[in-house]
């Protein structure tokens, strides 16, 4: 970018909200993947007008704009691989309106997911999407990726909680789609299209979110199994017995041991699989559900079935689940977290295939799964400094994706396509669908400046 272009941006956001020196730019080269790409300038807009002015200028000059929240992205979507502007939304972080009467909260995109929960909980409400990175990730990023989380099994994904938004189009025009209403009556539901669009269609500046009352009670169970297959069958059987748990999370032996190393909770290091199950609702109905779940577990040869007896115990179990991704760092210097989804009954098949891939490439791969959704996060452990190993990681991950697709699955359940999975997209979609996706992207962003060529290659 030219100095005159940077000066123009400086005039829009002020000196305190722009960075151009090398050390600062380095920080924004990354997200939570192994990919890198440096922006030429970082800007931190503080309001919609600034975002609008930045985009209008970028559109006029043809400068790439990579919109970013906390940078916890797991598909390379936040990597400014074409240079240009890193548009960091973290200073637009206010809760603008809470409307409990209508079950709606209006927020800016830089609000952190956990901070929103902390704000709502004292009022008896919560926002159901709960990605593992919720302590750091922003709502804007969650919407860009259509984030999920453990609670999705019962409560759905981010898409189901976005009622509308104010956003800035690639041209700089500010528009509002949807509203605080629970139903969007527009003939084409652009709100749904925006969710999961990975920053390629527009920049969110205000979000209308649906919130829910906190259920009055919950019960958390920890079950261990001698085989992943038994644990997987348990998952399918629980739902067919008429119970949709709030969460149904699975960890394999490698990750049980990582979690135990980190937390020292006394998890069974010899178990092949662990299920963390939670049900919620009215207090009278929970004992019956727990009893049914226990019966199903016993039928599938559960090794140990334990009900958390206190809120502290529940917190400990969830700490083990939420920290396990970080805990694997003790095993190897680097890890890569995959994200594929298969139909629920194909869980044992894909887990078996992952074990085979792990052996073939001599790479430790742990399996963490939102098992009720069939959404797996294979964690490949390796050493980034070993180039041969990195090559094997890419091959192993490509094979996991191919197997997921062959089992009727999809490339991504909640992390998006970004840069990481772009090369595999043609394995999932026909040329007609890919052409359509490209046409949709060009309809919103004819100059391809918004997170350019993420999801798929659009070109100029």
């Amino acid at each position: 970018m030219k100095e005159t272009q940077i000066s123009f941006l400086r005039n829009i956001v002020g000196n305190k909200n722009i960075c151009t020196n090398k050390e600062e730019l380095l920080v924004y080269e990354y997200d939570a993947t192994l990919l890198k790409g440096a922006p030429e300038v970082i800007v931190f807009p503080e309001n919609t007008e600034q975002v609008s002015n930045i985009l209008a200028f970028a559109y006029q000059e043809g400068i790439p704009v990579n919109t970013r929240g906390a940078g916890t992205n797991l598909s390379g979507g936040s990597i400014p691989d074409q240079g240009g502007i890193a548009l960091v939304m973290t200073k637009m972080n206010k809760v603008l309106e809470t409307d409990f009467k209508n079950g709606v909260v209006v927020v800016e995109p830089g609000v952190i997911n956990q901070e929103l929960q902390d704000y709502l909980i004292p009022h008896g409400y919560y926002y159901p999407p709960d990605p593992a990175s919720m302590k750091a990730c922003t709502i804007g990023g969650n919407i860009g990726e259509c984030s999920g989380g453990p609670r999705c099994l019962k409560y759905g994904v981010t898409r189901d909680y976005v009622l509308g938004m104010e956003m800035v189009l690639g041209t700089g025009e500010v528009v509002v789609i949807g509203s605080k209403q629970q139903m969007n009556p527009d003939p084409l539901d652009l709100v749904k299209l925006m969710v999961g669009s990975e920053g390629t269609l527009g920049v969110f500046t205000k979000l209308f979110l649906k919130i829910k009352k906190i259920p009055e009670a919950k019960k958390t169970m920890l079950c261990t199994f001698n085989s992943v297959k038994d644990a997987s069958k348990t998952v399918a059987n629980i739902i067919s017995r008429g119970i949709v748990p709030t969460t149904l999370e699975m960890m394999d032996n490698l990750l049980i041991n990582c979690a135990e190393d980190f937390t020292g909770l006394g998890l069974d290091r010899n178990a092949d699989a662990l299920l963390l199950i939670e049900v919620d609702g009215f207090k009278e109905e929970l004992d019956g559900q727990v009893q049914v779940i226990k019966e199903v577990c016993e039928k599938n040869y559960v090794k140990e079935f334990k009900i958390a007896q206190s809120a502290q115990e529940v917190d400990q179990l969830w700490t083990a689940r939420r920290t396990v991704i970080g805990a694997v760092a003790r095993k190897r210097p680097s890890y890569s977290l995959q994200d594929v989804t298969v139909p629920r009954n194909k869980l044992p098949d894909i887990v078996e295939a992952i074990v085979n891939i792990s052996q073939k490439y001599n790479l430790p791969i742990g399996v963490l799964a939102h098992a009720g959704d069939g959404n797996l996060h294979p964690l490949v452990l390796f050493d980034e400094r070993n180039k041969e190993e990195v090559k094997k990681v890419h091959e192993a991950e490509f094979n996991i994706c191919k197997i997921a697709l062959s089992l009727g699955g999809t490339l991504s359940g909640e992390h998006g396509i970004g840069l990481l999975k772009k090369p595999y997209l043609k394995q999932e979609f026909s040329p007609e669908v890919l052409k359509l996706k490209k046409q949709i992207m060009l309809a919103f962003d004819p100059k391809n400046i918004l997170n350019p060529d993420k999801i798929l290659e659009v070109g100029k």
Partner: protein
Amino acid sequence: MVNINIMSPVDIRELQSTIRKAITNKQKILLKENLELQSLPIDAKTVILDLSSFDKIIELDKENFTVTVEGGINFLEFQIMLAQKGFFFPLDTYASAKTSLSYNVLHGLPSYTLGEYGNYREYVLGLEAVLFNGDHIKIGGKNIKNVSGLDIIGLLIGSKETLGIITKLTLRLLPFPEEKRVLLFNFKELKTALHVTNQLINKGINPAKLHILNASGNSIIKNINLSKSPVVIAEIDGFKASLPRQLDVFKEIISGHISNFSLEITDNNEITNFWNNFREAQYQALINVQNTVSFSCIISEIPEMVAEIEKELVKFEQEFIIQVNGIVGTGMVIPLKKVDNEWISQVAKLIEKYDGKVLGKKSFVNQGLNTIHKKLIDAFDPARISFLGGEEF
């Protein structure tokens, strides 16, 4: 009397061929169900699509709780079939008995259960469609979560036949709730009924269905001797263990406000019959006039909005039904006899006064969004063969 040009393709190839011919011949395409539900300026050239040959259940996957089904199947018959096999597909609309699954999904017809059970996007996991550019596309599958690129499924749902025709769907199913009850209460005033339903939701009671009808709305409740005053109909479902307390809280909140009638239906067959009658009566009321106004509005604004509609429409000396889904704030104003445009625009004006939206009416006015809208249509329907999406209409 216009000759109606009905085409009944039996497979994708025939449907594609019909669409391609329409592109070549510059004909408009419309689903058959519209003929009854809307008054439309069709001509002999208009291709009326009858999807009734697309009526097969492809796969009921008991392990994954999904069903793959062709879109032309009658919506209610499909639900009955699922229920007989122990599966629950919770969406249910006034047109379920008369229209295809595809019609309901393409038009995003508001479900009676909207709220507690959500909307179509939460249940449609995959679909096949023939677009109005002639392409046959397949997206999604049996996966509950899927974020592989842009959400074309979400774009097709509720697109009102402007992009293409859905031919096959894979849907997420639920286990049946253990028990349910239907409760009916007469109220003295419509506004009070609406306020009370807000209190219910604030107490954490989430009925599966919650309808509020004005006094004239009683005419669509058959075989129950109600007094002519506003009525609330609620269906509460859930686990046996917690249902009694939910019902107690419900009755306690509502007891201080009801006029002189209440009824609790406990038998499942009677509940089914009640909704069959209700659905049929509402559908008949709609097709009798073909110019209903459907709306959505912020829930807290609805009591005032509805009160003003009731007051202001008196001058037309025209009886009408107001029906509101109290959980999500959607509803309809249905005249009991044909009305003129002045009546329709007066209702729309009152809805918009309370920031409500008239369903099907494009709400955005920005130049940028209009350009995007046009480009999206260019991608899906370059020859503008959609009857409902056409400039003329």
